[in-house]
């Protein structure tokens, strides 16, 4: 039996990607104060060959400590969460938007590195994505609808965070 673990990685320094996205949404796409804030994290989902979630988390911690492409302690903060707790409870003030590539070449490449170089033979599968954490502006009543609207790019003036022809989106509010 396998156990799944999520690794969330965020920058300890200002995240220029998230700041740019927030600026474009507010100023160029007209959302203004409707977008209260936007953060971003790298998201990895590991499937480890063990029925012990604690052991799975330990294995992921070991790999993350040895691979700066996953977690670079000079600039990242990371946390590991058991998948049974995923998605974690969102606060009323936040909406989570997970954007994943339809063809996850990033995870495929990382899986190859972890198994070939670090001997992670118990790593069954790996998926990656970008987790956006949206704080809707005060007075915004439907955070989920706002998140879906800004996430899925349908035209030049509509949507930003994902191109649905290459990416899939999940929203938790």
């Amino acid at each position, binding site marked *: 039996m396998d156990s799944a673990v999520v690794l969330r990685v965020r920058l300890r320094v200002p995240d*220029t*990607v998230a700041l*740019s*996205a927030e600026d*474009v949404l507010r100023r*160029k*796409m007209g959302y203004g104060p409707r977008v209260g804030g936007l953060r971003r994290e790298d998201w990895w989902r590991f499937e480890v060959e063990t029925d012990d979630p604690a052991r799975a988390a330990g294995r992921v911690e070991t790999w993350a400590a040895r691979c700066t492409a996953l977690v670079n302690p000079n600039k990242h903060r990371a946390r590991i969460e058991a998948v049974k707790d995923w998605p974690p409870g969102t606060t009323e003030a936040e909406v989570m938007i997970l954007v994943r*590539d*339809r*063809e996850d*070449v*990033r995870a*495929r*490449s990382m899986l190859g590195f972890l198994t070939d170089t670090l001997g992670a033979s118990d790593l069954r599968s790996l998926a990656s994505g970008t987790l956006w954490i949206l704080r809707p502006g005060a007075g915004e009543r439907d955070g989920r609808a706002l998140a879906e609207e800004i996430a899925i*790019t*349908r*035209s*030049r*003036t509509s*949507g*930003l*965070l*994902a*191109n*649905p*022809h*290459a*990416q899939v989106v999940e929203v938790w509010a």
Partner: protein
Amino acid sequence: MERGGSGAVRVAVVELPGSNCEAETRMALLAAGVRADIVRWNEEPRTLAGYGGYVLPAGFSYQDRVRAGALAAKETVLEIISEAAAAGKPVMGICNGCQVLVEAGLVPATRPGEVEMALAPNARPGFHCRWVFVKHTARPGRCRLTRALGDGEVLPIPIAHAEGRFRTTSSSLVAELGRRDQIVFRYCDARGRVREDPDVNPNGSVDNIAGLCNADGNVLALMPHPERAAWLRQVPDGLSSPWADRRAVARGDLGRAEAEGPGRRLFSAFS
């Protein structure tokens, strides 16, 4: 703003934050006899709108933040270019410029304004920088910017990208683009055979697509770099192509080496 050139049409090479090929793109236009200025993206809209054509050069606009081309597509300059394209002015997007045009819905624009495709990460991960071959698969004259190219003409040309894989979730779009003759360039081998082989199709694009035009044929988005193939001296040794044979003959002769390269005719079409 830089000004120069002597042709009748003035073309704006639009420098976005992070563009890095605007100078050589302008040089290629000038060599093709086209008046061209490098114009910053935040120039006065009236100034931008006054140009007779536009090139979005290669580079990394906004550092590829969020997704290649995604942030630039929201800029006011793309609204101006969109209006210019609707009015029939020629527009070309090269590499990152191609990504911007697709993210802005200017190409393929079978449903104007909608984003119908994506430039996804290469099927073989990583940044691929090498010469490839493309075949002109649209009928001559279908695309205004390739009107100087022959039917089925094969061009050696460089690529340099990590996200160059045309794809769509539509089950019918690619066939529709084929029917409408909007697939201007397809990746091929040196003999012009369009094959689904990673050495031929370097990024895994659907139907080997390397370049598309819009329905009216005045907007061209292509991932390869014609500005890096505008002079014969830029063609490398060892390519299996008549262009390389010409380049070999020109070796050591600056006059001959300055002759037209395989990509220049895309720029001369602006004149």
